[in-house]
């Protein structure tokens, strides 16, 4: 079976400068795959390109069997591809409920949307308590919950997560990762970008390591966790 997402020699440039220099990566249906790497490696750029926020060659990205490189973001969401952006990107002046409603913007079936809203509130009871509060006044962790809940409101087949643990206290990080695992269990395919390499590898099936625009290592997450190079560079351990 062909993978749900396949990057083939993907290159992304800002102006003349290449931030992603020809990477191959694939994610099969139902997998949780992580992409780790140092600051500035090009992880966010990769996710933005997949989500349709940056111009790339059409054939460089295949999703659900079709080339989608350069397709605009709003069309991809309608095809089941959702990105939770780095820094969360909640609409600070909209309420929690309005943010969630925007996640389901393109969906027509009001009854199903209502059901999903109830599910999002089940998943994040804190959001339910704060549904009328403007999102800008939420704590960082709550905003991350909202960003994930909002993306789920589009009923994605493929969920791209960009550093969901960024800036959160350990307890909140744990809660977010539990949620990610729960979402994956429901059958949503996930590509997870993380600074917290250990945690990411612990929850993932497979992992990719990115350095200055190139994939330098990849394999089953269990193997990467014990790989000496990964341990030294990303897990903060000497051999």
């Amino acid at each position, binding site marked *: 079976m062909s993978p749900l997402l396949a990057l083939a020699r993907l290159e992304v440039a800002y102006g003349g400068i290449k931030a992603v220099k020809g990477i191959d990566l694939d994610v099969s249906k139902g997998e949780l795959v992580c992409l780790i790497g140092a600051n500035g490696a090009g992880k966010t750029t990769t996710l933005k390109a997949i989500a349709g*926020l940056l111009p790339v060659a059409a054939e460089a990205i295949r999703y659900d069997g079709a080339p989608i490189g350069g397709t605009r*973001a709003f069309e991809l969401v309608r095809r089941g591809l959702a990105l939770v*952006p780095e820094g969360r990107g909640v609409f600070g002046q*909209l309420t929690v409920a309005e943010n969630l409603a925007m996640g389901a*913007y*393109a969906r027509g079936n009001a009854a199903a949307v209502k059901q999903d809203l109830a599910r999002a509130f089940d998943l994040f009871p804190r959001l339910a308590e704060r549904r009328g509060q403007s999102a800008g006044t939420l704590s960082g962790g709550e905003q991350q919950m909202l960003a994930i809940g909002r993306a789920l409101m589009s009923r994605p087949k493929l969920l791209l997560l960009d550093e969901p643990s960024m800036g959160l206290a350990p307890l909140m990080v744990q809660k977010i990762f539990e949620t990610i695992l729960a979402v994956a269990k429901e059958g949503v395919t996930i590509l997870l970008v993380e600074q917290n390499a250990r945690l990411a590898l612990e929850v993932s099936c497979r992992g990719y390591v990115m350095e200055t625009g190139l994939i330098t290592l990849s394999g089953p997450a269990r193997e990467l966790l014990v790989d000496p190079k990964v341990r030294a560079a990303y897990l903060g351990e000497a051999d």
Partner: protein
Amino acid sequence: MDIFLQQIVNGLTLGSVYAVVALGYTMVYGIIQLINFAHGEVVMIGAMVAFSVITALAGTALPPVLIVFAGILAAVPVCMLLGYAMERIAYRPLRGAPRLAPLITAIGISIILQHVALLIWSRNPLAFPQIIPLASFDVGGAIITGAQIAIILTSVLMMGGLTLMVYRTKLGIAMRATSQNPQVAGLMGIDIDRIIAFTFIVGAALGAVAGVMVGTYYGIAHYSMGSLLGLKAFSAAVLGGIGNLAGAMLGGILLGIVEALAAGYIGDLTNNVFGSNYQDVFAFLVLIAVLVFRPSGLLGERVGDRA
């Protein structure tokens, strides 16, 4: 007759027109941070179209209210189309350009529209046929005419309708989302091009009705009427806090009242050195004062709040 109360009535009338026009400026600014200087000309085109329709129907047996309504019915779609075309042809290609480019384009469009109007409707002021009966009522010493009541009511209805749309409908929420963060709005499945076009169209529709209102109120339309009216409405939007809907409404009403009171009292206050013909100055005095003392406007957020 009570001058104060009378000027308040006049100010409310004028102010509600300013408010409706100011909404057009503020909506577009809120969503793409563009000051659409051609918006005043959209209002003018609305008045002109209504003039043609009302003149054509004035001789018929139709009741006056229906004739004015027909004028609105014609002006609104014409202006909506104009607003859409403007965005599509002139502003969208400049979306990523430095901010000065669309601003200059806006000024260019307003000049083009004035000259198109000049070609179609001549350079002379056009007198609206006097079909509206001059019914008037006495309220506590001030006279309020039927036209004034109609203008205030129509404006209030439009402002209420717009507020409901922006705060209560999915489309309205999408407009606010787009104004806060267009990129993330795209990630929600919102086609921001459509939202932006829609914003222009709604603003133009409001402008069209405003044009018909001023035209019939003063009984006159002129190809250059949009520039002063537009500048005043823009001042009102800045006064309220540009980008803020409630601010545009408040700013418009306040500006109308300031202007009317100034016109009513300036002669007395200056021993008739200045007359009420100086009333236009006040809008700009207010604009300058706001820019100096409270650049974010009465209800505006501090710059930087908008992400």
